[in-house]
């Protein structure tokens, strides 16, 4: 994916828009390019399906995940480790932040505002137009505005992640991309990139050759998707 990547990339969104999968895959992409990456789990909102649950899996692939220590991983407490500040200010490599959903999730991000200088970070708002509260411009404005207010930071670009979970097809993604592009235009924000399940990437690239696409491999699975533990 050819985009200009700043030292810190932060993903925010309406709850359940795919921030976590995007943060993980974005970090993996940087890591596979040979860069040093820290993935910060800033999600203090939802204890289910968050980055820290994939920590062991990601660590075994050499990715550094910053989240609360062992016994607090499953705790429903707003704990943030001091290592986050270090990762945000690191002089080399990249830092990717997965922020908790909605305006309430953005409060945690706001605490780090003093450590974020304008030219060093991008704050992306991930949009899935199949989610009930971000189906149109008005919905995106409302949620994005609330996030900006609570984080005291300005969104610098949109990411299109329109999907219906495992039922996503090409048409849904393309319709979503068109919608999110229009929203970005109306908001005078750049469209940073679109995310796509790995298997649909070749088709997307044929239809939208100019658009940067982040291929997604899924880490957050239900117990019946994890199924039989086959290698």
């Amino acid at each position, binding site marked *: 994916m050819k985009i200009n990547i700043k030292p810190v990339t932060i993903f925010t969104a309406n*709850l*359940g828009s795919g921030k976590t999968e995007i943060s993980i895959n974005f970090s993996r992409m940087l890591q596979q390019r040979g860069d040093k990456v820290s993935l910060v789990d800033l999600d203090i909102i*939802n204890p289910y399906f968050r980055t820290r649950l994939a920590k062991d899996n990601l660590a075994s692939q050499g990715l550094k995940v910053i989240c609360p220590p062992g016994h607090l991983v499953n705790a429903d407490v707003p704990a943030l480790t001091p290592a986050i500040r270090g990762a945000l200010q690191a002089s080399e490599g990249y830092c990717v932040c997965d922020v908790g959903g*909605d305006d309430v999730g953005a409060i945690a991000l706001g605490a780090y505002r003093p450590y974020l200088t304008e030219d060093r970070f991008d704050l992306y708002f991930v949009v899935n137009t199949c989610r*009930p509260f971000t189906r149109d411009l008005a919905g995106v404005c409302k949620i994005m505005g609330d996030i900006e207010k609570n984080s005291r930071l300005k969104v610098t670009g949109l990411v299109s992640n329109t999907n219906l*979970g495992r039922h996503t097809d090409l048409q849904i993604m393309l319709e979503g991309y068109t919608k999110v592009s229009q929203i970005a235009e109306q908001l005078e924000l750049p469209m940073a990139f679109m995310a796509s399940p790995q298997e649909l990437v070749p088709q997307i690239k044929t239809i939208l050759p100019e658009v940067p696409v982040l291929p997604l491999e899924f880490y957050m699975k239900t*117990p019946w998707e994890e199924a*039989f*533990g086959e290698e």
Partner: protein
Amino acid sequence: MSKVLMKGNEAIGEGAIRAGCRHFFGYPITPQSELPHYLAKRMPEVGGVFLQAESETSSINMVYGAAGAGFRTMTSSSSPGLSLMQEGISYLVGAELPCVVVNVMRGGPGLGNIAPAQGDYFQAVKGGGHGDYKLVVLAPASVQEIIDMMQVAFDLADQYRTPVMLVGDGILGQMMEPVELADEVTLPEVPAKPWAASGLKGRKKPNIVNSLYIVPEDCEELNQRLFAKYDVIAAQETRWEEYRLEDAEIVLTGFGTAARIAKSVVDKARSEGIKAGLIRPITLWPFPSEVYAKAAAHANKFLCVEMSMGQMVEDVRLAVNGKKPVHFYGRSGGMVPLAKDVLAEVKKLMAGGE
């Protein structure tokens, strides 16, 4: 119709709104907090009431008030919160008030943890509060079914003047699946409620909503009336899903998330030549006993899969009535059975193991 990607907890909220519920009272608790969060946004859009009470005890008694005034109303919580509500639920039953109570179960006992569990089965189906009563208990297993079941829940509540409980667990509440939503919402017709305390409306005698029956003869009459009603519900409202059951030699069974796992095991076992099938109760009360009795005629054995130490398995054993062995596999305290472990259990049982 349009397809939307929703979390189970959000679907409970949207389902309630589409079923005409305009009065929600609740108190946040993980793993169901997205539901009050969702309704806090949605209720003002449809002119409804979202009220965060100061405790679960308050929520359930606010539901009593709204139901007594004739409104479609609900509350929701997770395990420890439901324990706090039990007194109020018994009062709602005693006053024959329709309402919907949601339990997105988590690991227990005690404060336990926020991980998914099914350890409140007994509390839901055997009467968690005091006195002789049953709740209609619905156990959806997908986000679409949650939306559909919320409509059913409110309809049954009004039709039979009874509290209806919808149970899920943390995974069902948090997972996301696409759902079909009608673009135009036509609110369902709600039956007349001439008993409601909603003003005299020209009558001379006020309606009184109460669960105090100070004369024992009267209270016995209430009990008999309730149980006559339960007989009708059991005869008419029992729901379940059968999957690959026709020639099954081993029948897996479970509800909610455990049933989703069991279903994936059935497919995997079939692909390896094991004749497996599934019974998934959708109503936990009334329990679909007959389908188990029928399956016992051709199946050799049963395996009940639960996210508990074994609760529904007691009802399965009563239904199978000793005709065939009923085995159990469960994980508890917030742990979830792994499909591969359930499959190993199936293979062990099919090889003659205990």
